[in-house]
């Protein structure tokens, strides 16, 4: 049989199709990524990374098969509804909610590094640090379920986070539980990595209940379980109509430009959010610092050369050492060689991790208070919470007391004055420049 020439010509195309199809038919189930920025920063060895991965899988399972210990106080049924691949059962009940609605921005690990992250400003939230900005609780406390539900229901104005108000309540609740699950997993990992680095040389992290559950998991679990006890309840605002409101706004304005509250330092003398442009939030700071410490390619090459030179010199000294026995010498040389390899590995890993990040660190912009758009909500109560506790994970400081019942920088009344002033800013003349006179209008 004669094979037509065109068939031969199409052979690469057929191959290409096979490559495509192969990608669709068989792929590994999605997996949780390790917190590689943390791993690189703390210079974990491959063996330590394996411990990190194994412990996390033991405590939290996989994206398709999540697991939680009762100590987490999380509801595994709700988590299962949100986890896994997207499908719907015979009753039409939606499954795999996180992957249907959230994963493209927040990523499978909840690290805020989904495929769309690179084109969004601000970047999607990375849950793993357990830091949430818009909530009703004390600064460092976790948000309550109601806080997370509100974000899902309302979305976050001026960001890519949409409203999921159309989802039924049980689906919202499942997603809230899954966000808590991912966050708890991330917090546990950060603490685990810290514990791994704290182990003395030559010893291993004890993988027992005391370390993994009582020490690591419980810390994160308790924070979430006690969130509802740490809600900030402001005192009733004073009556605010007519001249009382005007007085309150005037008092707020004085505070805004005063040296006690110092609002204008970051939000700018014009309140356009142009006072401080070079600062980073906590999520971006970590990457920014790692980048700075690593330096450019010349600095990396130089550091690598120093590591090799130091190790070689050290080895040479050991070889010349006449007091050491042949056996000791061999052990010492082996350890020098191992340390050298690890140092180079750690250096390369930092570079690789930064290279692989889907987006560069970005500075944080103080809010433009004249736009009338408030990410955490526009109710006076929302603005009060932003002022009282500051915004966790950002440079915005707290004007309320650091511990409940303590004395804050401002009194609650002064905070209400500032709330009134902030809410009045979009209506000030400077926010709404006068229109040019209508040339057609005749007097």
């Amino acid at each position, binding site marked *: 049989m004669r094979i037509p020439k065109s068939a031969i010509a199409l052979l690469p195309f057929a191959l290409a199709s096979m490559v495509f199809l192969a990608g669709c038919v068989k792929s590994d189930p999605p997996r949780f990524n390790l917190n590689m920025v943390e791993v690189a920063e703390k210079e974990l060895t491959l063996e330590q990374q394996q411990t990190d991965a194994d412990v996390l899988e033991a405590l939290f399972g996989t994206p398709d098969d999540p697991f939680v210990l009762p100590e987490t106080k999380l509801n595994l049924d709700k988590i299962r509804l949100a986890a896994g691949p997207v499908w719907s059962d015979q009753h039409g009940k939606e499954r795999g909610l996180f992957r249907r609605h959230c994963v493209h921005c927040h990523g499978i690990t909840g690290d805020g590094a989904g495929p769309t992250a690179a084109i969004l400003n601000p970047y999607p939230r990375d849950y793993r640090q357990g830091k949430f900005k818009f909530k009703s609780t004390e*600064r460092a406390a976790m948000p309550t379920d109601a806080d997370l539900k509100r974000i899902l229901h309302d979305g976050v104005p001026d960001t890519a986070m949409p409203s999921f108000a159309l989802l039924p309540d049980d689906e919202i609740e499942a997603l809230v539980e899954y966000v808590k699950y991912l966050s708890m997993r991330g917090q546990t990992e950060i603490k685990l990595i810290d514990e791994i680095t704290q182990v003395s040389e030559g010893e291993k992290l004890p993988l027992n209940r005391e370390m993994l559950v009582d020490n690591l998991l419980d810390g994160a679990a308790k924070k979430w379980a006690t969130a509802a006890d740490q809600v900030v309840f402001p005192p009733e605002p004073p009556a605010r109509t007519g001249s009382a409101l005007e007085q309150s706004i005037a008092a707020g304005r004085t505070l805004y430009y005063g040296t006690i509250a110092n609002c204008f330092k970051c939000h700018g003398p014009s309140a356009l959010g142009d006072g401080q442009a070079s600062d980073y939030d906590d999520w971006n700071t970590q990457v920014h610092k790692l980048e700075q410490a690593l330096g450019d390619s010349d600095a990396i090459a130089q550091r690598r050369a120093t590591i090799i030179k130091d190790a070689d010199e050290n080895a040479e000294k050991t070889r010349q050492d006449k007091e050491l026995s042949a056996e000791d010498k061999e052990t010492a040389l082996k350890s020098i060689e191992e340390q050298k390899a690890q140092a180079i590995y750690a250096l390369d890993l930092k570079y690789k991790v930064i290279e692989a990040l889907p987006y560069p660190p970005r500075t944080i912009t103080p809010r433009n208070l004249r736009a009338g758009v408030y990410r955490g909500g526009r109710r006076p109560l929302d603005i009060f919470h932003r002022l009282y506790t500051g915004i966790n994970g950002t440079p915005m400081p707290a004007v309320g007391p650091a511990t409940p019942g303590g004395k804050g920088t401002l009194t609650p009344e002064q905070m209400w004055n500032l709330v009134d002033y902030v809410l009045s800013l979009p209506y000030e003349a400077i926010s709404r420049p006068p229109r040019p006179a209508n040339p057609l209008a005749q007097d």
Partner: protein
Amino acid sequence: MNSRHFLAFACSLVGLGLALAAGCSRPVVAGPRPDPAVALKLREQLSAGGAAAEGAKPEDAAAEGPVEWGTLHGVFKFAGQPPTPAPIAATKDPEVCGKHPLVNESITVGPGGGLANVILFLRTPKVPVNPEYDKTAKDEVLLDNKNCRFEPHVLAMRTTQTLLIKNSDPIGHNSKLDLTANASINALIPSGQSAPEQLTKEESLPKQVGCNIHPWMGAWLLVRSDPYASVSNPTGEFKIENLPANRPLEFQVWQEKGNMGGLAFQGGKTDTKGRFKIKLKPGDNDLGTIEVQASAF
């Protein structure tokens, strides 16, 4: 092969290239895959409440017997010509901050080459503490915002003590403490006022303190549950008194910028992480002059 065939061939080659390239987008660095068998075994052990056998038990430093006490001291020196600290331009509140000569304090070398602001602290947990330290257990430890910098630049405190963040400047400051074990703090400190903070948990390493209004300002704070930490003074000297003697102790040397691994002291060398183990003798223990090479930074 005629030109039509060639075109088809070329097109399909491009297709193959695209298919291959699709699989070779930005690499994902995700770390090693968990081992399901290991994870499952570990989970069973944890759920059953049993203790896994793996891992070494830390040496018990709190051995019995009457405790004798020793002092550990030494000097950190910068080997060679110290770098000139880079000046900082006061871009915020220049009318106040511009009056003070501000420099980068990440490497502070004093007269005679002494390396200041290096912390030496005890890592070994649960050691007996000398009753002498009871006197200072409830003290206030001051962190002052003064002349648009933090004073001191590096400080160590105990979990029982109170951190008093003060603002001695005529302008406002905020103090952002990025803590790990304790809840993070970002307090606004108006001019002339101070804020007391309780930090009840031990931090494994010094943590950074910053001021967002004046981004150049920075300090480092170490919180420990025992009193055994010392920050080297401007001449590079450090001293920890009344340490428990005759038992294995582990210390860590830390400097904000440098790698304190491989430092040679009298009787040993720090490991890659700047740690070393030592058994103190009662009375005086001198680590001698510890030289830190410029390549460490």
